[in-house]
């Protein structure tokens, strides 16, 4: 599904990712953990080419999605981003109604069929486990929702354009425990249909939701293993020190 071969990434002179090779299967949740600045978010943003927005960056190596190198010249970035959805750390719904937020991705795709949009919005909100809470106030501003609801709205918004991959950059770090646990449940259920890559600072979260976990440190992929193995008997001492909090 997602494969990277010997990825090196630079911000100017800073060598942010060092020779990363990784494989993620369809319909699995892969968690990326590691201390701040270890490159895990940078790595995540490779897959929908969000790093393109940053000046003076350089990528070496191959990044394949479904066998296609997403950095080849023939790839349209906005088409890629329709296939690879993303949810950010802070909920960032647009200052529009709940309905329009979810419909946004469809509208920018030049879809104007009203009944299709209505149907898709409902499906997406249901998939994001938000429908029951908002079905009576779709016309209300998205800002009236709580933080956790806003984040699920952002997930619904990403789902509306039917991506096959969902990238999540610390999706629950700005939320309270109850909202966090709702998001985690959602992630767990979404893997039936989507391939999910999640960056998280919260190791327990990685343990709870993911099938495989990658541990990054100083731009290197220290260990990539089954989550069970990772949290019970990691192979590398560095991993052990990090997940037990004995780090540094």
């Amino acid at each position: 599904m997602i494969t990277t071969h010997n990825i090196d990434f630079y911000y100017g002179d800073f060598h942010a990712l060092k020779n990363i090779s990784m494989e993620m299967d369809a319909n699995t949740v892969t968690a990326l953990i590691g201390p701040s600045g270890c490159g895990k978010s940078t790595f995540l943003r490779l897959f929908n080419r969000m790093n393109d927005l940053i000046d003076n960056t350089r990528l070496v190596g191959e990044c394949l999605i479904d066998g296609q190198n997403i950095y080849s010249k023939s790839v349209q970035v906005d088409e890629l981003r329709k296939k690879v959805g993303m949810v950010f750390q802070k909920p960032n719904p647009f200052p529009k109604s709940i309905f329009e937020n979810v419909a946004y991705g469809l509208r920018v795709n030049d879809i104007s069929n009203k009944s299709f949009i209505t149907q898709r919005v409902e499906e997406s909100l249901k998939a994001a486990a938000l429908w029951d809470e908002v079905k009576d106030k779709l016309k209300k501003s998205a800002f009236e929702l709580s933080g956790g609801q806003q984040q699920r709205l952002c997930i619904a918004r990403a789902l509306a354009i039917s991506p096959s991959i969902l990238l999540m950059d610390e999706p629950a770090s700005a939320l309270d425990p109850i909202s966090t646990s709702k998001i985690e449940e959602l992630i767990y259920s979404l893997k039936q249909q989507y391939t999910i890559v999640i960056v998280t600072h919260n190791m327990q979260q990685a343990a709870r939701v993911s099938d495989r976990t990658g541990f990054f440190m100083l731009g290197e992929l220290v260990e990539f293993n089954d989550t069970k193995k990772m949290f019970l008997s990691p192979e590398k001492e560095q991993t052990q020190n990090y997940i037990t909090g004995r780090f540094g």
Partner: protein
Amino acid sequence: MKHTEKELQVLKEEVSQMWKLVLSQLEKAKQSFLSGDVEMAREIASREKRVDAFELKIDSDCENYIALYSPVAVDLRLVLSLIKISITLERIGDFAEGIARYVIDNGELRMDNGEVSNNSLSQFSTLNAQLVEDLQLERMFDTLIGMLSDSFVALESENTRISGKILSKDDEIDELYRNSLDILTNYMQQNPAFIRSGLKTFLLIRKLERIGDHCSNIVEEIVFYVDAKVLKHHFKSGELRVES
């Protein structure tokens, strides 16, 4: 239901399965012992492997559950008690197999002596019905089976009201065990040819007594899980009760 809760349910279900298996092992041990059914005893011995497999599975599943979901409070107590219960169940399974081995050994002895059935040796190689009666072995078996199935109900219903009743049954077992020492001593004094057989019988009764202790431990684990109380070593135990 959250997926972590579901995982916990799965874990609990595995322990229930194991429990049922061990319970049936014990019941079959009783039957084969009372009827001298060697076939059934062999079956018990071969099924012991399944009990062991259950223990390994539950052990690693519990490890994974703790590693992945970091349970706390009632969830943590449940997982911890499930680990201990599964270890204890495995021990009980071992004892059931031990009883089965006893039956098989006796059966083989009977076969060897089949032609000389009047031989006085064979008379004392197995227990005679009167002795079984005196030792109240059937009652002992039934009490143990009752303890094991009652504690299973206690876990399933998360109700610890019957824990006292189950624990008092262990005192009953200890009582029978102490009595058996006297009965067997007397019997062996009168029939020196029976000494070897009698010692084996005593070891068997000792096994039954240990099963009783293990059932008590299980009840204590259930109380720890449900009521968050530690019963261990607190109540007054019989003098022959040994913590292991």
